[in-house]
């Protein structure tokens, strides 16, 4: 199982980022092998549609689960179409949230905020 998490810094004792589309990095954790990967989020600088591009990164890295405090509608559409489950994080600790996930204490994220339509600088 591969878990994706938006994080503030590219190191293991980092915190979970409040933003999804414009988060600086993603952490991918493979629970079977224990391998951890840090991936820079190229979507962070994009003009619009950052959520869609960030979601594409999650999909392309073949994550099975996404842990995030929030997520936009468009990103959610991409992620769910790829069969990835989205859970709402609780607090900003990476470790605690992974433990909570394993203990089945996290709930599915079901509310997705509306996008900004990518017309921000138009």
């Amino acid at each position, binding site marked *: 199982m591969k878990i994706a998490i938006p994080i503030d810094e590219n190191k293991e004792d980092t915190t979970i980022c409040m933003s999804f589309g414009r988060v600086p990095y993603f952490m991918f954790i493979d629970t079977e092998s224990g391998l951890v990967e840090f991936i820079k989020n190229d*979507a962070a600088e*994009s*003009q*619009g*549609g*950052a959520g*869609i*591009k960030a*979601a*594409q990164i999650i*999909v392309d890295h073949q994550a099975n689960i996404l842990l995030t405090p929030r997520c936009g509608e*468009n990103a959610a*559409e*991409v992620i769910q*179409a*790829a*069969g990835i489950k989205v859970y709402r994080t609780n607090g900003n600790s990476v470790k605690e949230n992974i433990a909570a996930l394993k203990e089945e204490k996290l709930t599915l994220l079901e509310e997705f905020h509306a*996008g900004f*339509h*990518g*017309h*921000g*600088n*138009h």
Partner: protein
Amino acid sequence: MNIAVLSGKGGTGKTLVSVNLAAAAENAVYLDCDVEEPNGYLFFAPEKIIQKNISIQLPVIDRNRCTVCRKCVEFCNYNALACIAGRIILFEEVCHSCGGCRIVCPENAITEEEKVIGHIESGVSKNVKVKTGILNIGETSGIPIIQEILKENEEDQRIRIIDCPPGSACSVMESIRDADYCILVAEPTLFGVHNLNLVYELVSKFSKPHGVVINKCLEGENPAEQFCIDKKIKILGKIPFHQEIGMMNSKGMILVREKESYRNYFINLLNEVTEIRN
């Protein structure tokens, strides 16, 4: 001359001011850019309506031709395309109709399709030419409609009153792009100050000459007025909270066309704005 009328939220009297300014002018064009909720036409009840559909071009992907090379996904600056489970999907509301993906596709798998997103109604109401932009329900961006309303330059030197969408989003920026003067309509409350500040910051950012009309004024404290004094913003006028105004407005009557005193008030307001500019 283009005069844009803005407010931080709906219901402040933006349409009241726009409609009456246009009606007070000898010869004006009233452009309703509040495409999600246009209501100026309810006052003007324009005649000889001509309707024009506004559409955008959207890419359509032929799945039989697409090899999922992802060139289009990588190309799209707005991230309107995604690739999931071996299929390319389009996020219509994010697409800016630039046509680029069609050009980069090596398989000629992308064509374009017209999609009607709304329309413009043009008509006349006595001395005023009325143009109303109407965005279809479910569409997210009215910008193509606003651009079209503002594009057609009127043949004569009429005063153009632009009734902007409420708020300070990109559709408002588009509406004030060519404005020579911006009138900010505010309510005299603390909440009104918050909304006023939104549009004040916007017009300042675009360095547009501007002034404020405070609507629904009562005796006593007036935080919006104080805000203008503190920020040295020109107060163009105050409209009292008056039963008669409220009644006429709710019946869709145009104050200027009903009563001499209102007529003079808005003529003066218009003169002030046009003089500031000259």
